[in-house]
């Protein structure tokens, strides 16, 4: 199993900034061909806090390897948990959790 997504979340003046680094090869069609591997990339990613979606993105193969994302949202407390889930083309799902500091 691949490494977990690294999550850093910080609360400042009511706004939470989340930085996350997902661990994924993100092989586009071209790259997969030259490396003779199967195409695979993250297609859908969400972040939830207290079961409420705070971030949602559908992505293509043009994200960089080990995609890094940053986003902000309001309405969370210190100590709340951020759960980031991604799905890739092969149907793998991974869930990682980080705490808001």
């Amino acid at each position, binding site marked *: 199993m691949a490494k977990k997504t690294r999550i850093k979340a910080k609360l400042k003046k009511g706004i939470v900034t989340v930085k996350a680094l997902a661990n994924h090869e993100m092989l*586009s069609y071209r790259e997969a061909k030259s490396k003779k591997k199967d195409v695979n990339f993250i297609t*859908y990613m969400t972040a939830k806090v207290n079961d409420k*979606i705070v971030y949602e993105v559908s*992505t*293509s193969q043009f994200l*960089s390897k080990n995609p890094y994302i940053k986003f*902000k949202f309001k309405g969370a407390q210190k100590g709340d948990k951020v759960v980031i889930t991604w799905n890739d083309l092969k149907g793998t799902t991974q869930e990682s959790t980080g705490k808001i500091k």
Partner: protein
Amino acid sequence: MNRRNFFSVGLGVLALSVVPSTLSAANFRETMPKAWTASKVDSAMQEVFGSSTTINSKVKLKAPDIAENGAVIPLTVSSKLAGSKVAIFQDANPESTVAVFTVPENGIIDYSIRIKMQKTGNVYAVVESEGKLYAASKVVKVTIGGCGG
């Protein structure tokens, strides 16, 4: 109210409280499969937003002028609009759509992401707000392609 009724009422409330959160979740790869194979920015925009008429204001797109390495191009899209959807397109790769964000309640449009481009091209950020499309674009010069070409 007998016990059985009470139970069904409880279930109804539970179902109601669950629905809104699932409604906002949309995997655009499933709901709009055509958007991901469109090779032109205009047609990709049509697929995602149903229109390709944009207003060039109120959206900020931060990207490097020159990307030495096309495999990692940091982008930041920000806007003060109360948008509902944000999308990123580019015209350097075979397909145009890079990412489509759904802005949830409490969300702030300030997204950073890293993308790859195989050659020099334009990057477009589009924000949908109250039925209108606001956009920003920028040319990113790529010196080494990042799509393994």
